[in-house]
Every structure is written in C-alpha cells, then in structure tokens.
C-alpha cells in the first residue's frame, strides 16, 4: 500500500495553527493594508512569534527544517487570509532557498542566524527592468576587485527588497557567457551603494512590499558568493523549481476563500423569491470551483511530495503553479459574478481575491514560461 493521502498528527496541528492564525491575525487586517499599500509588520512579528516565518531553515541553523509538504499546508491557510500578506513569508523563503541549495556551512550560519533570531525577511533579486522571463539576459554587473565584488545595476519587482536583511542578487561577471556568466551574491541590508525604492500602484497584493533595487558601486564581500562564479543561473532555476509550489498552494488558498465566500453569499442572497444557491446556474459555478480547489490541492501536494522525496519535480512544480493560479483566478472571477453588483465593490472581499491572485500567474515565472518547462519535459522523453 504505497500511496497514502493522510496528514500526520503534526501536520494537522500546524494546519490548524496556520488556519487560526489566518482567521484571527491576517483576514481582519487584509482590506486595510490592501487599501494603504503598506506592509503589516506586526503580522510579520507574530508569524515569527509562532514559528511560521522562515521555518524552512534547517534546525541546526535555528529554523524548524520544514519540508515542502508542511510549507504548502501552511501556504494554503495563510493565503486564504490574504495572498498579499502570504507573499511576505513566501518571498522570504524564496530568498532563503538559494542559500539552502548552494550556501556553505559558514554562509548558512551567518545568514540564517539573522533570519531566525528576530522577525526578519529575505529576498530574491533576479528580475530587471529590461528582462524578466529571459533571466539569462540580465545586465547587473559584478566585477571582482580583491576580496570584493563591485555591483552595478538595477533590479525591479523585488518582493521584500526594502525590508530584507539579506537579498540574493543575481548578476553577470561575463555578459558574453550568457547564463554561464551569472553568479549569485548575498547582499546584506545597509551595504553602502545599495538602495531600495518602494514601487507604488500595484493592482493587488498591495500588503506585500515590492521594490526597485539600485546598486551603485556596491562592494559585496566575495565571501558572500553562493557556489562558484557561473553557478548563478542554475541556482536561480533550481530555486524557482521549488518555490513555485508554494505559489500553487497560495492559489489554492485564494480559490478556497472564493468558494467559501461565494457559498455563504449564495445562501443569503435572494432573487426571484429564493436563495440564489437554489439556482442550478449558481450551483454549477460552486461545483466548478470545488473541482478546481480539490484537484489543484491534490496536485500541489503531489509536487511537494516529489520535492520531499528528492525526486525530479521541475515539471510538476510548473504544472501545479500554472494550473492552480489559473483555476484560482477563475474561481475569484466566479465569486465576483455570484456576488453580482456587490462583488464589484471593496465592501466584499471577493474583488480583492481576483486582484491578488492575478500576480500568481505572473511572478516566479509567467504561466507561459511554465508551459515552456512542461513542454520541454514532454519533448525530452
């Protein structure tokens, strides 16, 4: 009997904790921070307090060493409360993962300590104004000068970039080598020549801080190089192959919220003398949403399981991310539809679900890029 869908008692407990946290600490402040376009730092502090922040850091470095399955269980719950707020710890894990994958013992000790001893975030800086999907075309330069690298260039759309204690920055030391000329450097907050400018005017996920990072003759110790020169591109891709799975989990959380809100509303709202929940047109929408939530969750768990087993998971992560984010966008869309005119207003939580989850189709590799990965996997067999 090798297949088993049950969660361990511990996983059920952490699911319960994350669910309660989302209901009591995240959902009640979500609309406010969305409107103000501000990071709810007190939520970050509380996440740290209960151990839900940066929990993928191994125990020997002060974390809890959570596996991918635990991460997606937590991710679904927190995103149910607010996808934008969930992006804060999720993008921190995105910044931690390259250090996990390629950092030396000394680097892990040095950087992870700063991320576990107090509420603190990490960030991952790959995208630039001139290139996103075509990551190997990045232009930020890293020039070796004695015991340092001198960084020059601009990164953009970097989640947590301004709050982060440590930012993993991808840069080229030899543009002519294309992806083989990329390296990954850990830049610490406050390093002279490193500036973060907050970007304003986001459609959704407005509680998560998104930044432009500017490096001007920024001297970074060579001791902060992850792996070797030329490893950077591979580190970035291996990171994203893992961290897309929590994006899928967050999408499932948003879709579940959409289904719950729509169900509640449909039972209360009356048209033509009866609750609209009694109309088959509405029932079918709810059924479609439920089909999406269940299948996307099951597949996300599968991708997480592959990761925890150490099996190849790049294609599964791509399927999970693209499928779940598209399903969730449609679920949010239908939740608005079921709410009729009210669904279009801020007063109800459903229009925010749509604005928030749109980003899940774009960041950590657009869904077109996910299809490239999936197709490459099919054709390579």
């Amino acid at each position, binding site marked *: 009997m090798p297949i088993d869908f049950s969660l361990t*008692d*511990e996983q*059920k*407990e*952490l699911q*319960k*904790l994350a669910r*309660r*946290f989302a209901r009591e600490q995240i959902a009640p402040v979500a609309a406010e921070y969305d409107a103000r376009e501000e990071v709810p730092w007190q939520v970050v502090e509380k996440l740290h*307090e*209960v*151990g*839900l922040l940066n*929990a993928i850091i191994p125990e020997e470095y002060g974390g*809890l060493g*959570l596996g991918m399955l635990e991460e997606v269980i937590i991710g679904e719950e927190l995103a149910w409360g607010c996808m934008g707020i969930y992006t804060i710890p999720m993008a921190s894990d995105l910044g931690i993962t390259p250090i996990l994958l390629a950092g030396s013992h000394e680097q892990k000790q040095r950087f992870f300590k700063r991320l576990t001893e107090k509420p603190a975030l990490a960030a991952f800086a790959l995208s630039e104004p001139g290139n996103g999907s075509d990551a190997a075309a990045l232009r930020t330069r890293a020039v070796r000068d004695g015991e340092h690298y001198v960084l020059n260039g601009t990164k953009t759309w970097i989640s947590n970039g301004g709050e982060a204690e440590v930012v993993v920055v991808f840069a080229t030391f030899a543009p002519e080598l294309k992806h083989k000329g990329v390296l990954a450097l850990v830049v610490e907050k406050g390093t002279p020549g490193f500036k973060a400018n907050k970007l304003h005017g986001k459609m959704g996920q407005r509680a998560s801080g998104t930044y432009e990072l500017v490096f001007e003759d920024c001297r970074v110790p060579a001791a902060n190089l992850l792996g070797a020169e030329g490893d950077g591109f591979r580190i970035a891709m291996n990171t994203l192959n893992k961290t897309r799975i929590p994006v899928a989990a967050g999408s499932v959380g948003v879709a579940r919220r959409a289904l719950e809100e729509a169900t509640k509303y449909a039972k209360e709202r009356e048209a033509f003398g009866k609750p609209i929940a009694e109309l088959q047109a509405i029932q079918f929408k709810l059924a479609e949403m439920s089909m999406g939530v269940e299948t996307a969750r099951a597949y996300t768990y599968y991708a997480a399981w592959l990761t925890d087993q150490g099996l190849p998971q790049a294609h599964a992560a791509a399927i999970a991310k693209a499928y779940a984010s598209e399903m969730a966008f449609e679920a949010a869309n239908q939740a608005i539809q079921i709410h009729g005119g009210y669904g279009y207003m801020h007063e109800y939580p459903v229009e925010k679900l749509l604005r928030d989850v749109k980003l899940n189709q774009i960041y950590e590799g657009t869904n077109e890029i996910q299809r490239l990965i999936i197709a490459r996997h099919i054709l390579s067999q």
Partner: protein
Amino acid sequence: MKFVAIIRQVPDSESRLKIDGGKVDLSGATLILDQMDEYAVEEVIRLQEKHGGESVIVALGPERFEEAVRTALAMGTDRAVHLVQEGYLDPISQAQALAEVLREEAPDVVITGGQQADWDSQALGPAVAEALGWPVVAWTTALELEDGKAKAKHDLDEGAEVVRVGLPAVFTTQQGLNEPRYPTLPGIMKAKRKELKKVPVSAASKVEVLEQTIQERTRLNKVLDGTKDPQGAASELVRLLHEEAKVI
C-alpha cells in the same frame, strides 16, 4: 510547585451541529480545545514561568480528546494525563474520576474552564473541588500566588470580589483572565515527544441522556428608527441592550 489545567475538547463555536435520532451528531464539526479551558492552559503556563515547577494537563474524555491535549502541550505545558472514557459522563462522576488522579498528582493549583462549551454544566470545577475537599474560586479574572496562598479576583453576578485562599485550590476561568498564546510551530514539534499518559476509565454515569435538542432562538425583530432622533434612538438601543438583552 505543580499547576494542573483540566481541559476538554468541544465543537468549534462556528460549527453547525445536527441532531440525529435525538443525539447531537459531531461528525461534521471541527473539534477544538475548549476556549474557556484555553485560559486555564495559559494560566498554568504563566504560573510556571513565574514560580517554576511543573505544568500538567489532565483530561477526561474519549480517545479523540488527544488532539486537544496535544494542542495544550504545544502551547507549552510539560506533560499530560488523559483519562480515556467513551460516552457521556455527568460532571459529578467526571469530578470523582478526576479527583483520583489529582490526589496522586498533588498539585498546588488546579484550573479549569468556567463553563464547558458543549454541555455547559458550569459544574466541573466546583465538583472537582468538592470531591477533593479543596476550596474553589469560580469565574476567576486575576490570579496571583503569594506566601503559599492565592489571591484571586473573581466575578459575581452583579460585581466582583477579591479573595485569598489556601493552597491547594481549584479555580475556574472567566474571559479576561489572560490572553491565551498560540501553540507555536516549535511547540507542536516538541509536543509529539512530550509524555502523554493514557489511563482507561469506565465510570458509570449517574445521569443518562435520553434526548438532545438544539435551542432555536426566536428573534424579536425590533427595529429602532434613527432617522428622526438619532441620539434618542442610540440611548434606547443602549437601554435595550443593557436591560433586555443584558449583553452590556
């Protein structure tokens, strides 16, 4: 010193309960650590943090209670004793079974929920004190230990009272006693390794439940018109909430 919290597992207040064949059907309900007992768990942890010693969870109920016991351990208590009994047991019989364990454990302080969210007997705390012959302070909102005694503030019907009692003693909780902490993730991981002793019991209930029904609340549908005299309507609302609804 030794501090004991007696806890129970109950349906979440948001759960929809069904009656099936004259009995409450819990199959669709989310079951949680009783929120009134959560104050008790928080308080024993605080007492231990302040005075040292040991914090122990004691529970009496079916096998499924283990989940709530683990939650209490994950909040930070040291170990647990679970008296496993399936089926209904009235509070007096529960108290007698619990008293045996408590006599053995010999704690200084026992705290439990002021009322139980499921059967709402409000009797468990006083009955335990009675069975042990210890003093009881009900509806406690503040608790301090000094010189081997406890000073406690507790609610009465129309006010409050500060009392001093010798230890050991039993306290029941009231909202406001403290702000219960979340079980933490490290706490959850540690809870798995903490001692949880199971003791099978098969006490006979002195009360037999024949039929259960769910209270249906009828609404008064009273609407106040605030358009003409908003101040007057507001005072009337306050008066009704205070005098008739008795919620403020």
